């Protein structure tokens, strides 16, 4: 395909979406019975599975325990068959380590860690299929898993990516749009208070356009919040119905 147009003249993207439109999000909480909290989230073709264990006593070195708050321990891992080209190591490489740190930073901002001093909360995220927006799908899945585990948070953490093509900000980039090499912004937001938990930008973007792109990412995060909130409410409704009056 010569000259793959990321944004056609009529305003349609490669997969037929409009510039500010999110991909189809489907999610389910309580996927695994043995974990404290678990969730599965599909954002378009990107599939992420998040599992939360905790809060529990510190495993491993007690010296790392924080005397006044809980330690949030994350691991980001991609299945070897998740990408187009087979990935040799599921985790432990630089990209995964970086994502792990980002997840840790994001959730330390949202979870009320002061309520559990000297304990540990483990958040493990697994990508089953990678089609762009891996970090964002992980954060959204981990939010649902943390809610499923009953760990108190300040607010939902909703994440979405945004790009900038031909003077138009695009929301929720897929793999083709990410691989094209244009500027990308990944934003993790606490929607009610508009607080930013994580902001990351790649490639080159003129500062005049930054505000537009951040606006687009913010709006996309708020749309994601509406979807996630509905998922949680449906899940609670289902569980309480099963438990009886």
């Amino acid at each position, binding site marked *: 395909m010569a000259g793959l147009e990321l944004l056609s003249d009529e305003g349609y993207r490669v997969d037929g979406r409009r510039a500010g439109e999110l991909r189809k999000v489907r999610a389910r909480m309580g996927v695994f019975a043995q974990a404290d909290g678990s969730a599965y989230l599909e954002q378009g073709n990107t599939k992420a599975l998040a599992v939360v264990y905790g809060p529990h006593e510190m495993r491993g070195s007690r010296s790392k325990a924080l005397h006044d708050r809980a330690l949030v321990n994350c691991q980001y*891992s991609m*299945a*070897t068959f998740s990408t187009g080209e*087979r990935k040799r190591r599921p985790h432990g490489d630089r990209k995964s380590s970086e994502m792990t740190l980002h997840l840790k930073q994001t959730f330390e901002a949202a979870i009320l860690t002061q309520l559990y001093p000297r304990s540990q909360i483990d958040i*493990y995220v697994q990508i089953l299929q990678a089609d762009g927006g891996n970090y964002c799908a992980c954060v959204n899945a981990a939010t649902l898993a943390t809610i499923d585990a009953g760990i108190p948070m300040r607010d939902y953490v909703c994440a979405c990516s945004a790009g900038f093509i031909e003077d138009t900000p695009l929301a929720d980039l897929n793999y083709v749009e990410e691989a094209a090499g244009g500027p990308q912004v990944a934003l993790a937001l606490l929607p009610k208070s508009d607080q930013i938990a994580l902001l990351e930008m790649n490639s080159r973007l003129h500062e005049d356009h930054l505000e537009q792109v951040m606006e687009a990412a913010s709006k996309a995060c708020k749309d994601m919040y509406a979807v996630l909130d509905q998922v949680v409410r449906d899940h609670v409704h289902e569980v309480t119905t099963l438990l009886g009056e």
Partner: protein
Amino acid sequence: MASVVLSEAEKVYVVHGIQEDLRVDGRGCEDYRCIEVETDVVSNTSGSARVKLGHTDILVGVKAEMGTPKLENPNEGYLEFFVDCSANATPEFEGRGGEELATEIVNTLYRIFSSESTIDVKSLCINPREHCWVLYVDVLLLECGGNLFDAISIAVKAALFNTRIPKVRVLEDEEGSKEIELSDDPYDCIRLNVDNVPCIITLSKIGCRHVVDATLQEEACSLASLLLSVTSRGTFTCMKKLGNGSLDPESIFEMMETGKRVGKTLHASLQKILDKEESLGTTRQKVGFLG
């Protein structure tokens, strides 16, 4: 491996129950838990399958890539196994914690598939000595609820059944250099014959009886288990004893008989499900983890 801590009273309860052919969840000694199998769950792969056996959850993805044949078998393709014990299953598997279990599982899989009759590897050859298909079978352990080996072998068999390898043609130039051409039709592919692929049956010895499909609690009560790899015709391709305890030869022969019986039934049920999924074709509703 993920394990539970049981008190002595609980262990006695489990052992006494099994002596009466009644397990904690009401099953008999030769009954499996409800097994859910679904293929074609991940679209980036050539074939995939998800198996849910009680609380054990396995996801297998098969990717077919072109490579050079091994020197000792120039006319054949080959299979490469990889197991990832995800931290999702238990926090002990974080970082490199799951590597020991993963290595054990990979070695067992290699031993089972080492027999020539399991998969027709000659059909994977494109150009002798130059090009062949390499099937990378990647197993992802999502949840550990006991009886890992059985679930993994069922998932591997289902994933191999689901694998679609694109058809390629070899074109020869005037100078003699070969070019490989991929067929244009995405549905034009070769399928593997999995009739001879074995399934693992793990029999755990608890008290003086043996049980099939042990849960985590039952595994904690058993001293020794026998791992048998059974094909659909009832032949064994591999046998291995696991655990710290010892088994006497009579028990081993009894377990082998049970394994043969159970194995044949398991293969028949699995084939029925796979054929049913196949017959539904594109009209099948894919559930995956959302169901």
